C-alpha cells in the first residue's frame, strides 16, 4: 500500500485533517533528489508513494483554493494523481520538474471540471456575488462583504475565461508555484507568461464587471 502519512510537510493536525500554511508547503527536497525519485517512480510504486506524500496536500490546497469545495478538491486531487501515476512511464523531466507537470495536470482537471459543470453558477456563489456588488459601495460593509464573498465572485468569474487564462491565473496565484515554475508548467517563457497573465487578469476584471452588469448592479 502507498503509505499516506503527511511526509515532511510542515503540518499541524486538527481533528481529522491537517492545516498547513500555503507559503511553507514547498518541498525541501533538492531538484537532484527529486529527479532521482521521479526516475525511480517510473518503475517503483514506493517511489511514487513518496511523491504522493510530498504533493498530495499541495495539490489538494490548490484545487480547494480554486474551487472552494472540498468535494471538488478531493475529486481533482484523486484524478490528478491517478493521471500522474498512469503518465509516469512517459513523463519527461523538463524545467520545472515534476511539480510543474503535476500542477499542470491539476489545472487541466480543474478547467475540465468547470467546463463540464457549465457556466451555471451555484446559488451560493451567485448570492455572494450579488451581495458583493450591491454592498460594495456601502462604506463600512465593504470589508465584511468582501471577506464573505469576493473569492466566490472571482471563482465564478474565472469560469467565464478561456481555459488558458484560467490555468495561468490558477497556477500563478493559487498553486504556490513561483512565477518561473508557473511559466514552466504552462510551457511558456517568462515574458510570454507575464503577458498572458496580464491579459488573463484584465479578462477576469472584465468578467467580474460583466457579471455585475448582467445582474443590473452598479459598482
Amino acid at each position: 500500500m502507498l503509505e499516506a502519512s503527511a511526509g515532511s510537510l510542515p503540518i499541524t493536525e486538527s481533528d481529522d485533517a491537517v492545516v498547513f500554511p500555503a507559503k511553507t508547503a514547498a518541498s525541501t527536497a533538492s531538484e537532484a533528489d527529486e529527479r532521482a525519485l521521479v526516475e525511480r517512480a517510473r518503475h517503483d510504486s514506493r517511489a511514487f508513494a513518496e511523491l504522493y506524500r510530498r504533493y498530495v496536500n499541495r495539490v489538494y490546497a490548490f484545487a480547494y483554493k480554486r474551487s472552494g469545495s472540498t468535494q471538488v478538491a478531493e475529486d481533482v486531487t484523486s484524478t490528478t494523481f491517478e493521471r500522474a501515476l498512469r503518465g509516469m512511464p512517459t513523463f519527461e523531466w523538463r524545467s520545472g520538474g515534476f511539480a510543474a507537470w503535476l500542477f499542470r495536470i491539476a489545472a487541466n482537471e480543474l478547467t475540465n471540471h468547470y467546463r463540464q459543470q457549465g457556466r451555471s453558477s451555484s446559488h451560493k456563489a451567485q448570492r455572494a456575488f450579488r451581495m458583493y456588488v450591491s454592498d460594495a459601495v456601502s462604506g463600512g460593509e465593504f470589508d465584511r462583504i468582501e471577506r464573505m464573498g469576493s473569492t466566490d465572485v472571482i471563482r465564478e468569474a474565472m469560469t467565464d475565461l478561456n481555459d488558458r487564462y484560467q490555468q495561468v491565473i490558477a497556477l500563478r496565484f493559487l498553486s504556490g508555484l513561483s512565477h518561473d515554475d508557473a511559466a514552466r508548467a504552462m510551457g511558456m517563457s517568462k515574458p510570454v507568461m507575464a503577458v498572458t497573465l496580464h491579459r488573463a487578469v484584465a479578462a477576469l476584471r472584465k468578467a467580474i464587471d460583466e457579471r455585475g452588469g448582467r445582474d443590473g448592479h452598479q459598482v
Partner: protein
Amino acid sequence: MVTKYEVNRQLVEMGEVDVVGPPRDFVDSLAQRLDAIASTRAEYAPHLNPQRRPRAKRMVFAPAFAALVLVVGAIIVTVDNGSPAYALDDPFNVQVQLADGRFVDGTDGLKISKGSTVVVGAGGSVRIRDHVYREGDVVVIGERGPEVADHLDVVVSTTRTEPTVSTTERVATTQPTTTQAPTAVREPEPTVAPRPVEPVPTTRVEAPATTRAPETTRAATTTTRPLVSMELGAQRVELSSQVALSWSAVAGAAKYVVVRTVAVSGATPAEPVYPPVAPTTLVAQKTTLTHTDVAEAVEGTPITAARYRVVALDSTGKVIGSSRFVQVNLPR
C-alpha cells in the same frame, strides 16, 4: 467598477490563505486506490526494475541474453497459454469477468488471463494487443488469445447518461476551520457511477429451453455469457442513517447479494467488489429486489458516505449480473 489592482490583490489573498488539508481518510483511501492501480501496471512489477550492469558487461551478455529470451519466449508461446499475457489498453466503458469469476471494471493496463471475458459497453472500446474492440463486443481470452465470442446489440438506457440522482435532502456540513481557513462546504450529491455495460444478452434471457443447444455448445456459451448489467437505486431515508435500496431483476437469479463500502469524515469510500474483500462488506443476501440498509457508524464515528453494489447469483453461486456502484452521502 473593479480595478485590476483590486483583482490582483484578491487573487494574491486567495493564494495565501491557509487551507484545511485533506482528511486523513481521504489521503489513505486515495493511496490505496493508487496502490491498486499500480499493482495492475506492468512497469511497477519489481522484477522489471533490475540493477543495470556496467555497459561493457551488458554488451558481452547481450547476445546470450537475447538468445535466451527467444528460446523462453518460444516455449511460452508454444506450451503455456495460461499465463496472464494480455492487458487492456485505453479501455472505455468496459467490464471484465476474470477467470476466477470476479467482476472488475476495465482499467488501463489491467492484466487478464485465459478464461477472462471482456464486455465492451455502449460507446466503449478497448485495445488488446493490436486489435481494437468496439461497442457490444464480447471478447473471450481463449487458447488462441482474444476472440470475439459474441456481439450484442447495445441497449442504451435513458437513465444511463444521468450521473447524478437527486434526493429529497441536501444538507451542507461545515468542516472544522481555523481562524484563517475558508469554510469548507460540502454539497452532498448521491452519485451513480456511469454504467459501462448495458447490453442484456437476449440469447440467454429469452431462449426457451426447447431451443437450447447441445451440451457441448452450451458449455461454451456459458463461458462467453456476459453478465447482465443491473440497475441499482439507493436513497437515504429522510435524514436517518437508513438507505433504501432497490434493483432490477435478472432472469435466472437465485439470489441477490448486496455489498458496500463506507467512509467517515467526508472521505470517499472505496469501490465495493464482489466477492467482498475488505474494505467491502456483505450487507445482505436477498431473494427480493429491495433492501433497507443501516449505515450508522464505524467504531463510533458516523458514516458519511456509503457505496453499494448488488450482484445476482444463479443457483450454483455464479455471478450472472452486477450493478455499478451507487454512492449515497450521509451528512450528519
